[in-house]
């Protein structure tokens, strides 16, 4: 076991753990944001630089600080390491700069985008972004294209996190899309357009941290915060069948995987569950999903509180008092 300190909180983790995962073990506000790292995808991370942290003390043997900030998602923990995240001015300043960089080519079309309300980039810029853009040049522009029958790609919004590429490689097994060209011209594309047709291809929608890959069956149907998220399951031969339904009245508007607090799906679901089962009768509904009180999705969704219950403002959850 290795001991490390993040923001003055000490935690013991196993060898081979990254700083980000150690921070997630502690949880709470000290967890660095991650746009490209996805714990279910091997090799992901290291692209977006939002999770940069300062290392004040490299290890017990070598108590020197590392001069540059390091990406916490791909840096392994060493014994006696001292990490500074939210308590370091430098980290917050650089994270602000990274956010500005990520938004350079982002079209800021949140009013149109289907991802708005559950978008990682929105959350990141809400916390670390500038109020207005300083960018004066033309933004790069691509026309939106349909990749496959059910998936829409808005390359304008993409931040090149490569999550969908890793999903294609590791979950779908047969990758037909990838990142073409380099640098400023880089774009996600299919080798042959309209060719993402695997049973699990829909998962690239779920892993996308921004609105670059969206569900065409849900396109412009409703805003995320007007729909009611429900846990549901069905017997599916291809996947576990455990999904989150986004309901509007009695209609199922959208089906996604169940996402945890880091916006990562618990289990990947198949395309049949995602795109074709849009009737309430197809599903066994378990109950409403817990939504963080600070999320816009919890707006106008009322929860019944019993008399003894209290609201814990730091966690944003309703707790039952014994």
């Amino acid at each position, binding site marked *: 076991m290795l001991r490390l300190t993040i923001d003055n909180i000490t935690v013991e983790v196993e060898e081979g753990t990254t700083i980000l995962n150690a921070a997630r073990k502690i949880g709470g506000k000290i967890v660095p944001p991650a746009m490209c790292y996805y714990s279910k995808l091997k090799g992901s991370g290291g692209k977006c630089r939002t999770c940069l942290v300062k290392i004040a003390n490299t290890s017990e043997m070598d108590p020197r600080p590392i001069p540059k900030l390091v990406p916490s998602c791909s840096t392994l923990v060493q014994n006696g390491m001292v990490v500074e995240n939210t308590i370091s001015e430098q980290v917050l300043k650089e994270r602000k700069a990274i956010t500005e960089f990520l938004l350079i080519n982002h079209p800021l079309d949140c*009013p149109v985008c289907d991802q708005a309300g559950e978008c990682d980039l929105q959350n990141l810029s809400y916390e670390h972004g500038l109020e207005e853009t300083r960018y*004066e040049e033309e933004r790069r522009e691509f026309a939106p294209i349909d990749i496959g029958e059910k998936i829409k790609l808005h390359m304008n919004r993409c931040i090149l996190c490569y999550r969908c590429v890793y999903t294609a490689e590791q979950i779908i097994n047969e990758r037909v899309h990838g990142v073409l060209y380099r640098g400023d011209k880089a774009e996600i594309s299919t080798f042959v357009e309209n060719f993402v047709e695997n049973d699990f291809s829909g998962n690239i929608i779920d892993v996308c941290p921004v609105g670059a890959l969206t569900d065409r069956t849900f396109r412009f149907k409703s805003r995320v915060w007007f729909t009611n998220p429900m846990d549901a399951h069905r017997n599916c031969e291809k996947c576990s069948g455990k999904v989150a339904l986004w309901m509007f009245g009695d209609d199922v508007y959208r089906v996604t995987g169940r996402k945890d607090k880091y916006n990562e799906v618990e289990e990947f679901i198949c395309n049949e569950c995602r795109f074709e089962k849009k009737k309430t009768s197809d599903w066994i509904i378990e109950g409403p999903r817990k939504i963080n009180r600070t999320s816009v999705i919890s707006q106008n969704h009322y929860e019944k509180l019993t008399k003894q219950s209290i609201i814990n403002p730091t966690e944003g959850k309703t707790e039952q008092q014994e």
Partner: protein
Amino acid sequence: MNKLTNKSKLVSDKQMTLSEKLYLPAIFKGMIITFSHLFKKKVTIQYPEQTKEFAEIYRGKHVLKRDDEGRERCTACGLCALACPAEAITMIAAERKKGEEHLYREEKYAATYEINMLRCIFCGLCEEACPKEAIFLTKEIVPSSFERQDFIYGKDKLVESVDNRIDVSKRQTAEVLEFKKNKNFKHNK
């Protein structure tokens, strides 16, 4: 015992004097006050023959604005409905098709947009929430009606006509006008 406030008064049940028992002096006193009001300035006006002037920033019936080229500004983002404390606004979005670029500004638009004027409390939060400067409250008032159905205003009543624009410059704050000058944003170009 300490008094809770210094406003409290001791109650007594003393006998009324003769002049008080007659009640006449008190009646005359009251009538003098009433009569004196005949010669004071009236606080009411004879509506509907006379109307009062509205404040420049009166919050009345909503308008859905068009841009300079006559395209609808609203993109059905739902922020007005989210901000609405009375939950008066509902909308259904649709995708702009090819050839409709002169009608709608963004690739998404509101196919139906309804405000229930019975629910609306005219607080103006929808206007504040709108990122596209599409919805504004005007000086017009919502007329009364006998049917509840008449108070659900759809796009036919809310969207301004191309020829007859409604001036909302008084409702645009200095910050908004400054923002509109900024050509960095695509929708200001």
